[in-house]
């Protein structure tokens, strides 16, 4: 594959993958809700042929705004993300898990865990929490 073709293909794939996935999501949500194209058109206040065009090969007039509306009328909800954002979020979650596992293993019991363990509402702004976290960060710096 030449560099020019590769660049053209990659841009086209980014577009086509987004469109194809959006259409597949709509069709899946329609099937799940037991809604026909005719019923979807009625719920959206557009013609049946407009729905057919939305789901057709060139996906005419399929915007993010419209996708959000379609999924809403099909009792679903659009959730948008990207690979990098997902990676960032999972790394952040992994870090948070590390932190909480350290807390569970230390000799110090975190006041929030202590409160939850005793079925009390934790006060995250309490002096003990601030003190605990201060001590934890000191430990982390030493490590």
């Amino acid at each position, binding site marked *: 594959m030449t560099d020019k073709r590769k660049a053209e293909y990659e841009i086209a794939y980014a577009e086509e993958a987004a469109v194809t996935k959006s*259409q597949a999501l709509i069709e899946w949500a329609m099937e799940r809700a037991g809604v026909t194209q005719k019923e979807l058109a009625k719920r959206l206040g557009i013609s049946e042929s407009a729905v057919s065009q939305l789901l057709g090969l060139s996906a005419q007039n399929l915007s993010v705004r419209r996708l959000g509306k379609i999924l809403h009328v099909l009792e679903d909800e659009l959730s948008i993300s990207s690979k990098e954002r997902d990676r960032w979020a999972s790394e952040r979650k992994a870090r948070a898990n590390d932190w909480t596992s350290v807390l569970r293993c230390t000799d110090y019991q975190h006041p929030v865990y202590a409160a939850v363990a005793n079925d009390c509402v934790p006060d995250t702004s309490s002096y003990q929490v601030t003190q605990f976290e201060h001590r934890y960060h000191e430990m982390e710096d030493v490590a």
Partner: protein
Amino acid sequence: MAKAERSRKDYLYASGSEALAFAYLEFEADLEAASAKDAAKIDALLKQEYCEFGRVRNSEKWNADEHRHKVGHAEYRVQAAKAYQCRVYGVEGSYNGSRAFFISAVEPKKKKDKADRKLLKTAAERAVELVAKIKGAKI
């Protein structure tokens, strides 16, 4: 000298939560004869819709019945993934119990409305050959 045995991985084109797609070895080279936009559409259809959702529901994008074609004593129903000008033919079956599409022919720039019968026949024959090479595959 004996030919080196190929593994299932050599034929695996895409996989998702609902299905897999296998292709004959020259598929990607053959797809290069299609425009970049067509190749991207076909890839998106197979990877993002067929493999992730288990099938392509819209008839503008998928023809589930390009007729049955006889290979040996059995008949196989050829299906087509459709882009703007390009068509990709294959036969649906399974791989170790999972839904699978066996890609067996490409028409990079379709000139007529009707599919080329000779190419469809080739698609059925090549799908049978492809399935025979992949352990666990059935059509």
